[in-house]
């Protein structure tokens, strides 16, 4: 009987090994699946889809560069676990996309995400949300939709995020004042 139990335990361990070897889908706290936005964009038009995993981000973070302006970005990449983005034009009516952006924003808030901002007027919707664990931001989602040109932007950064570094990155893109973004210290 005891021998049988030992063999059963060994079998369980062996059964678990292939699963560990194969890896699994991202399950970081700050990860948000953007599949719904990929399905929304018009494949016949220009689509940009970004999927950077931890290995690639680490490589970007460790890459050498003589440009000091790139240092904050590299430090930001080195601490991220995943970057996902979908940028394109929606194929259906603009109102449907606007509704989806709104619903996604609501769902994230309901599941514990903090909304930094939500700006909405007749033609534009913009939401920025962060996921915080133990007072540390470990996820950021930016949702932007412009109903006039029907362009939608979904961005998700998962991993340790320093908003101060994002503020420093603003200079690189000629966007001043990012160091005063709410949430940055």
């Amino acid at each position: 009987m005891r021998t049988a139990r030992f063999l059963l335990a060994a079998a369980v361990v062996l059964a678990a090994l292939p699963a560990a070897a194969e890896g699994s889908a991202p399950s970081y706290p700050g990860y948000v699946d953007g599949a719904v936005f990929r399905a929304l964009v018009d494949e016949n038009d220009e689509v940009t889809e970004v999927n950077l995993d931890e290995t690639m981000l680490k490589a970007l973070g460790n890459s050498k560069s003589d440009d000091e302006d790139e240092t904050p970005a590299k430090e930001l990449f080195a601490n991220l676990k995943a970057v996902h983005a979908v940028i394109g034009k929606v194929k259906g009516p603009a109102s449907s996309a606007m509704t989806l952006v709104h619903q996604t924003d609501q769902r994230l808030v309901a599941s514990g995400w903090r909304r930094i901002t939500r700006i909405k007027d007749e033609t534009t919707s913009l939401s920025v949300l962060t996921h915080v664990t133990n007072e540390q931001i470990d996820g950021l989602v930016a949702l932007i939709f412009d109903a006039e040109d029907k362009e939608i932007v979904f961005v998700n950064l998962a991993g340790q995020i320093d908003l101060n570094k994002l503020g420093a990155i603003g200079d690189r893109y000629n966007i001043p004042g990012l160091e005063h973004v709410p949430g940055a210290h």
Partner: protein
Amino acid sequence: MNACDVGRERVHAHFDETPDAAASDDLRLHLQACPGCRELFDDLAVLRDTLRARPRPELPAHDLEAVWERTVRRPGARWFDGRKRAAAAAVLVTGVSLSTLWLLRGPSAPPGPTAAEMARAEAQADLVLSYTARALSATRKAATRDVVGAKVSPAVRGNMPRDMRRP
């Protein structure tokens, strides 16, 4: 060590190693010269012959059974042997599996992104960061306009840049 001690050692060695053989020439010469060693030799020869002459009774079956019960068949011994075998089997199987897994994963591990992959990833990351920065910039402008400009103080609002004032 005196000569007699050496002789006694030879007598004992003779009975321990070759009890049935005749004494060697050296030993016989010593026994002729040493009465003490000759007496020891004779005593050991008598003891050997007496022990060999005694009958050898068979061990009773129940005594033999009791010995088996107390040694090989005792519960502790059975538990130890069974557990040990099972644990060794589990450790062996797990060890072989982990080694196989390591061997399979080792060669297939990617060597790292190529220069082209790095360039593409850098461009993609750049794009994502630019959109994120613009979203945060809009956040900052909205916060300044709606929170500071509208709720805090008209004096502050008066000092705001023109593009951030509420219409």
